[in-house]
């Protein structure tokens, strides 16, 4: 049984590697270009000014170039050359701090509110239209409004994270709380457990898996949004890094940043997945 499992895993890993190899190979094959030749009638000076012989960005870079960029950035991730040029590690830390702060604020608001909504069907129905209206708004649509009213770009960034991560948490918390099994609440009532204890020792553990699912979705969205928000507001963060390299049309660096964003997003999701598994119970 165990042997079969290991063999399956081995096979799937092997297949993943084959797919990776095929993608890289295709990428390499498609990005090989014959060295461009200028028409023969231009002068040597013109050719020099056009950067002939120098390495230039041109279309999608081949994987080797991206590899170089990865090695170069990872070999010195924490350098700090003034406000406009910082290492990838520092940029990531800025982004994570913004996401963390916005997310925490959202937790602080969404959990109690979700609890209240979940416990009271009246409140649920009263607030539902507002939630439904606000939920589908792209968080970036809030950006100009936030910039104009909050008058501080870094707080605006945090606000955008807050506003995008609040809805899944709010809805999931309310849903989780509302669908706690009636029997359990009845038992608590029969035993005359006071309402606070019921909330913390019966409802919270019962709703925890749903709440954590909401948080996991929220974190995923927050990480998606921070990149776009930082590209808009600039200054620091992984989004700013992408924008700055885009400015120079340095695509290997942009691809490197995309990979980093993917890896960090995966790690965050994995972390919440673990939490979720811890909170899951069997009925």
């Amino acid at each position: 049984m165990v042997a079969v499992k290991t063999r399956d895993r081995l096979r799937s890993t092997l297949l993943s590697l084959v797919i990776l190899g095929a993608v890289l190979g295709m990428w390499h094959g498609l990005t090989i270009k014959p060295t461009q030749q200028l028409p023969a009638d231009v002068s040597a000076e013109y050719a020099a000014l056009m950067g002939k012989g120098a390495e230039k960005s041109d279309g999608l870079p081949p994987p080797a170039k991206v590899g170089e960029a990865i090695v170069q950035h990872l070999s010195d991730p924490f350098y700090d050359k003034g406000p406009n040029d910082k290492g990838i590690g520092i940029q990531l830390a800025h982004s994570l701090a913004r996401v963390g702060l916005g997310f925490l604020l959202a937790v602080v608001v969404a959990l109690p509110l979700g609890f209240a909504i979940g416990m009271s069907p009246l409140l649920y129905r009263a607030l539902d239209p507002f939630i439904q209206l606000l939920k589908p708004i792209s968080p970036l649509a809030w950006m100009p409004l936030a910039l104009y009213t909050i008058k501080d770009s870094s707080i605006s960034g945090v606000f955008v994270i807050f506003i995008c991560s609040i809805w899944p948490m709010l809805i999931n918390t309310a849903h989780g709380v509302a669908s706690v099994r009636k029997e359990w609440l009845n038992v608590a009532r029969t035993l005359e457990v006071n309402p606070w204890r019921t909330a913390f020792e019966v409802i919270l553990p019962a709703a925890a898996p749903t709440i954590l699912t909401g948080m996991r979705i929220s974190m995923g969205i927050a990480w998606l949004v921070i990149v776009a928000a930082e590209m808009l507001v600039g200054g620091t963060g992984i989004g700013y890094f992408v924008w700055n390299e885009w400015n120079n049309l340095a695509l290997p660096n942009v691809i490197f940043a995309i990979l980093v964003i993917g890896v960090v997003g995966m790690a965050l999701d994995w972390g919440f997945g673990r939490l979720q598994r811890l909170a899951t119970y069997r009925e």
Partner: protein
Amino acid sequence: MSLLDPFSPNSRLRCACGAHGSQAEHEAQVGQGDVEGLNRRVVESAVMRAIFPRDDERRAFIRAVGRRTAMAAISSVVPFGALEAMAQEKKGSLEKTDLKIGFIPITCASPLIMADPLGFYKKQGLNVSMVKTAGWALIRDKVMNREYDASHMLAPMPLAISMGAGSSAMPINVATIQNINGQAIVLANKHKNNRDPKNWKGFKFAIPFDYSIHNLLLRYYLAEHGVNPDTDVQLRVTAPPEMVANLRAGNIDGFLGPDPVNQRAVYDEIGFIHILSREIWDGHPCCSFGVPAQFVKENPNTFAALYRAILNAAAMARDPKNRPMMAEVLSPAAYLNQPKAVLEQVLTGTFADGLGNVRKVPERVDYDPYPWYSMAVWILSQMKRWGYIKGDVRYTDIAEKVYLLTDAKKRMAEVGMAVPKETYRNFKVMGKEFNPAKADEYVNSFAIKKVG
């Protein structure tokens, strides 16, 4: 004496007691030596320290080129005489020393940026952090939030914001013009044989911002060739780096953009330079240094210090000898983040035009800081022409309120720059005379316009 001389390869720019930045400062403090000579050396030492942060580099440099050459080279960059005069002048205390200044990564911002690594801000006792910003709208918002104390702006922006066109109104002053010329019309390579603007109906052009000289010049150029910019072509506001990408993708046919984006399009073999913007209006302002009026009022001494730093930087940037050095300094990621080869072509004016020619136009970009009122009036006249501002426009009132020409004259004289006597002047845009005293007549004289 050679021990104290900043131009000697054998001296160290540290004083004997170690408490002062230089031996000269040390002596000035403890009261030895002749005061005037010392004062000169204090300034010289400070400048040398700013240029060569590592003392062994300075000594190696002077040893290599010789004392006399080094002195001449550096004096040509740095107005020592003016700096000394300033050092002696009794300065009021600075109200604010930590400043945040925004910039967009284009060559127009060169003097502002260069003042940082060259130590011109520090020289004035200012601790400036230059913040690269993602777009003009964001510059506007961050200035209006007072997140930035001052900022690199497009020349029409302070006028527009002061009047509340395109935003809520907030008085912004123009301390100096950042640069003149230095823009270009770039077309996609497929239009190499379609150079006559009369055939450009249906084209899509990118411009950096509505309230930009680029927009106004492109509109003017098209209209002079009988193409109505509002109905015959599409003008899209696009961030400069996206101009090149969009041109590659074929989403646009061309753009009137800032350098180094124009040269970058040529370098990447996507487009060619149709004309330089100076062929539309030679000496047109492009970007300006904008400061909220409230900042000027609240921090007069800081503002004066900032003014001097920027004018010194402009004087440095005007000298063609410094241009290759500027390309070198501006190229890294912290500043413009562009290949040095591209910046050099922009700054020296010896460039490939994308059509197979090497052109030599040393005045491709210049950094004349003088904020002529007449520039503001022309900009207003075009904003009126294209319906960005409506009703009666009191051209000269607005120009004189927004452009701080009186201050500029005073500060320019202070740092030893040549100051013109006039405040208005006539000039020609595509051969047509502009008289700032008759702005409304000028607006009405155009066949193609938007005003009803």
